[in-house]
């Protein structure tokens, strides 16, 4: 138990519940330490589920939940988890939280459950989660680990939703399809806000490439490019 004793000094100083460090844990993953654009983790699901905005939002919420609580539970158990089997224990925690999400979604919104189908289960293999447990939750207090989970989940979700906005708008001409907020923006019928059957928009066609996963790769690539040219600190990171 020597290494844990070093990390936690015996005299506990009163720490603020929401100080600068805590704020940094929440905000850093949105910018300088974004799991997708900087750490390049969680790409598989970012390519797969982002063809529509609504399922992406649901996916983002699911990942935030799983990440925050697996960080919390791992951190609570960090001193009693045997080092030899820690990865397996972390996997058990992640897998059970994912099952909780799956069972809940199946009860609350069956159509989105069908749409996301296998990808909810695949949250288990999302490298962001395992990465945060190993890198953060195993060495930090529960409250900070929980915030770190929420921050990283938000960073992941934000990119997911930005990518999905582009893909759905240019691939299907709609936004939030399948949800009560459904908006029909551009398309070949009078139902759409911009009707492309005739008039000045008659050249417009939905871009079928946007519906395929490959489009997400281009969009994420462009986001990484913009992100790096906007924040020069990132250029030296990798």
């Amino acid at each position, binding site marked *: 138990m020597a290494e844990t004793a070093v990390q936690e000094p015996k005299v506990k100083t009163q720490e603020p519940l929401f100080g600068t460090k805590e704020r940094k844990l929440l905000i850093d993953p949105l910018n300088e330490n974004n799991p997708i654009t900087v750490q390049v983790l969680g790409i598989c699901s970012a390519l797969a589920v982002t*063809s529509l905005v609504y399922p992406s939002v649901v996916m983002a919420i699911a990942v935030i939940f799983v990440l925050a609580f697996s960080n919390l539970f791992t951190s609570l158990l960090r001193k*009693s*988890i*045997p*080092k*030899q*089997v820690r990865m*397996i*224990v972390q996997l*058990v*925690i992640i897998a*059970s939280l994912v*099952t*909780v999400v799956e*069972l*809940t979604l*199946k*009860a609350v919104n*069956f*159509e989105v459950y*069908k749409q996301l189908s296998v990808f909810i289960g695949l949250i288990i293999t999302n490298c962001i989660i395992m990465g945060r447990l190993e890198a953060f939750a195993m060495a930090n207090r529960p409250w900070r680990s929980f915030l770190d989970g929420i921050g990283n989940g938000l960073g992941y979700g934000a990119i997911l939703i930005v990518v999905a906005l582009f893909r759905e708008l240019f*691939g299907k001409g709609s936004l939030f399809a399948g949800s009560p907020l459904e908006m029909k923006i551009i398309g070949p019928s009078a139902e759409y806000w911009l009707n492309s059957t005739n008039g000045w928009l008659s050249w417009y066609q939905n871009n*079928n490439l*946007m*519906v*395929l996963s490959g489009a997400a790769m281009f969009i994420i690539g462009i986001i990484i490019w913009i992100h790096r040219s906007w924040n020069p600190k990132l250029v030296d990171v990798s």
Partner: protein
Amino acid sequence: MHSTRYIIFFVLALTGVVALLLSLMSTGLKDIHDRNEAIYNKKAILSAIENSLETEVKSLSDMEIMEIFEQNIEQVVVDMKGQVVSGVLAEEIDMARERKKPESQRRLPVYIYNGNDGKIYIISVRGSGLWDEIWGSIALEDDLNTVAGAAFDHQGETPGLGAEIKDNPSFASQFIGKKLYEPDGDFASITVRKGGARDPLHEVDGISGATVTADGVTEMLERGIKYYQPYFETVK
């Protein structure tokens, strides 16, 4: 370092607790899951007759769907000889499982919708697309020849290409008004034609880039509707 005994104890305790919690949650939610699944399947059936319902199936509430099924829909199961099998509801038939049985032992679901304009027969078909299974519901007017509507779904067709059979409502709506039989009574089925329909009665336009899925739909319709022919004979 922890002792081996501690490790075994820890892992057993953790998995025990987790297994207990998850199984409690799963049993607790089972009724809601079953209900959601039943409504999802009912919606899929109703979307084949969306045209005759005069409302969008999407906008119907769960209660309304249950109500339509209870009041207006008669469920029949038939065997491959066209005989009605009693004691089974059509929605209890799992087409995926039936498809694995030898042809002569399969059972087929029929939903009969009693609407304002007479009966509509909804039959289920299932086949193979490019990557995985595809299936659909075909609604027939009471002459058992004219198509009143169709709805398709799939397991894993390519989004934007093969998946358009489900996602693009204009694909399924092409089937409305097509005929299954030639005027002289020969079975003609409906063909999804690459490059545009040529026969206005028995062909619909294909989807560019989705030739294999479209051929799968053609094949599924021809084979699937044929299975129902003995039953159609008994009704006519």
